[in-house]
């Protein structure tokens, strides 16, 4: 017996990373038995939406899969009086009409897709690589004819070329959700604390005895845990255009500290010798000039950059310059960690691979990558050989 159409729909959604389990499927059957969603195709879609669709998921994808399943169901033409079919669609005479509608809907969707593809094919090389990377990171791109430049805040700096193409990055489907980000940061103690260890601090104990004339209490050695403050260094412009939204989300969720020392600084390609305070990269800091701010306690530094992986390039000069910049950064950073928005599997052969191998730990932006990066910021580096 061919699989039931709603089951195909269910499977397709599962494949598309909708968090659905068997209980969700039986919930749908229960609702169908209760007389819900039987009026029409739209009614059935509405029922599926209420039961299976959750905030933050792609509604377009959900609909597409629904119609796709209907079309396939029609092609398979199930026997009419199959008692196992709980689906009303196959039992109604409307089935043919519904399927036709569905085909139209799918064709429309496909049309949309092809116009989208042909338009993107014309983009400048810079955006091309950004969009190409988007295939992996699921950035959604929406038409925005109504977006006139005058209303955009200059600070946000959506790329002028992107405006000319009438696309903006919505940043809705990221490799890591805001919630996962917030949760990851909880593992980073926000203040460096002196934690006592089991090791006796002999010097301090002798001093105690000398002061009081007897052995009153043992002094233990302490160990510093966590970092005093966090400094984010974000690569901006160029190949990072596609990841601006993601980088901003990471920055927004990161713990912030009060005081003179900055929480976020920007750079382009190489994190030094200058770092910029603003997105327009007008107000620059020399790394050395930052050093006095971290004299007493160094910072944890998190660098967010594709390190050449977005365009798949190997650039020897870039690696050398990065090494120089890192040498300077070590003066202010206790632990330096690199977060790469391009997935791990695309680093091979690019500058990213060499920076990771030779210079410092690099992690991809994903739930586990983020956790490892935060562990590394705490000084607990777990690197594969």
């Amino acid at each position, binding site marked *: 017996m061919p699989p039931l159409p709603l089951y195909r729909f269910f499977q397709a959604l599962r494949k598309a990373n909708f*968090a659905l*389990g068997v209980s*969700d499927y039986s*919930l749908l059957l*229960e*609702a169908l038995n*209760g007389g*819900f969603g039987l009026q029409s195709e739209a009614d059935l879609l*509405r*029922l599926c*939406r*209420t*039961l299976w*669709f*959750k*905030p*933050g998921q792609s509604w377009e994808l959900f609909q597409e899969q629904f119609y796709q399943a209907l079309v396939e169901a029609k092609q398979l033409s199930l026997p009419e009086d199959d008692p196992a079919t709980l689906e009303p669609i196959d039992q109604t005479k409307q089935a043919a009409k519904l399927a036709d509608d569905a085909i139209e809907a799918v064709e429309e969707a496909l049309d949309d897709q092809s116009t989208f593809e042909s338009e993107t094919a014309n983009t400048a090389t810079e955006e091309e690589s950004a969009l190409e990377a988007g295939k992996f990171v699921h950035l959604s791109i929406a038409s925005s004819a*109504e*977006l006139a430049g005058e*209303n*955009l805040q200059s600070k946000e700096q959506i790329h002028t070329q992107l405006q000319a193409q009438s696309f903006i990055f919505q940043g809705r489907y990221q490799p890591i*959700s*805001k*919630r996962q980000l*917030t*949760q990851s940061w909880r593992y980073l103690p926000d203040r460096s604390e002196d934690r006592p260890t089991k090791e006796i601090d002999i010097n301090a104990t002798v001093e105690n005895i000398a002061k009081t004339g007897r052995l009153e209490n043992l002094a233990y050695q302490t160990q510093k845990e966590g970092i005093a403050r966090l400094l984010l260094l974000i690569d901006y412009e160029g190949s990072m255009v596609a990841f601006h939204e993601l980088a901003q989300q990471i920055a927004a969720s990161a713990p912030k500290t009060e005081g003179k020392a900055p929480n976020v600084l920007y750079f382009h390609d190489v994190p030094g010798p200058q770092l910029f305070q603003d997105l327009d990269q007008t107000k620059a800091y020399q790394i050395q000039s930052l050093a006095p701010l971290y004299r007493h306690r160094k910072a944890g530094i998190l660098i967010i950059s594709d390190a050449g992986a977005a365009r798949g390039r190997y650039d020897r000069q870039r690696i050398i310059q990065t090494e120089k910049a890192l040498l300077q950064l070590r003066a202010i950073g206790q632990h330096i960690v690199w977060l790469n928005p391009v997935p791990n599997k695309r680093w091979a052969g690019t500058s990213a691979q060499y920076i990771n191998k030779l210079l410092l730990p690099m992690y991809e932006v994903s739930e586990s990558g983020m956790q490892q990066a935060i562990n590394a910021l705490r000084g607990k580096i777990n690197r594969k050989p």
Partner: protein
Amino acid sequence: MKYEGKALQKPFYRNGVKEIDPYFPDSDLIEAVNLARYLKRPLLLMGEPGCGKTRLAEAVAFEFHGEEYDQYLVPWYVKSTTKAKEGIYTFDAIARLRLTELEKDSEVLRQQLQLKGKDLENFYLENNIIRKGPLSKAFDLSTAEKPTVLLIDEVDKADIDFPNDLLLELDKNAYYITETQTPTERRKADSPLIIITSNNEKELPPAFLRRCLFHYIKFPQEPQLRQILDGLFDQAPNSLKEDSIKAFIMLRERLIQGLSQKKLSTSELIDWFDALQHQHQNNLTIDGQPIDKAVEATITELTNRSPQVPLPLYQILLKNWEAVLSILPDKK
């Protein structure tokens, strides 16, 4: 018991005082409520601020229980510091300690404190040592014939782990009091209708979402807005209603196009129209113009896409500087 969304076509008055405004749910929302009721699952509502998420609970309770609705509506307004346990019960440890002191002089009290299980729980409840929270109140009161409506309002205000702490209670329709070791379980059929609202300020955990039905309340269309104004202000002239709604919709679209972060909401239309019709009734003028003429002028200028749009009582609708500047640049 089926929700039809028909009970609140007119405001509800008690002793001459208006208690509930009319409420007009669309058919999608009505179906979602019935589905939640049938499957005994919580209904998670999202939508623009002011679109009537919170008010649904009141409307459903009123339709189910009529004038007695307030006995069956249990609201739980979540704040940024709210803990999940507060929804179930709070235990006053200081009061319990005080009883230990009094126990020395009272034989009766001594015996009472020896009680176990349910009896001890009842004793604690009588003495206000255990206070039930909204969640357990709603569970206790609810029956299949007279279901309560539990409103968990703005669930996203609390810590990101808050919803996770409620999973067991929502799943099993049960709660447990640790101090008396008394489990309380209800029949699934007796479940209350649980309505949860969120403004999506924080993402909700997947495990929590999995247990909820989800419905997004769309911004109402023109006929629905008309219905709402008709229900609220039956005395006001129709032409003024028509024009106000038209101006409001055009203004809303213009502000959205201007990338304003703050969208105009239904509740703002109600406030605005309330003020307009009040001024109209008393024949007050704005800048020397009667109210209906002023609203007409607003529509004309919005249609012409003029950079400067005269907007009577703009303070009610424009809530940030960008919005004011994009409609009334001369305020600069």
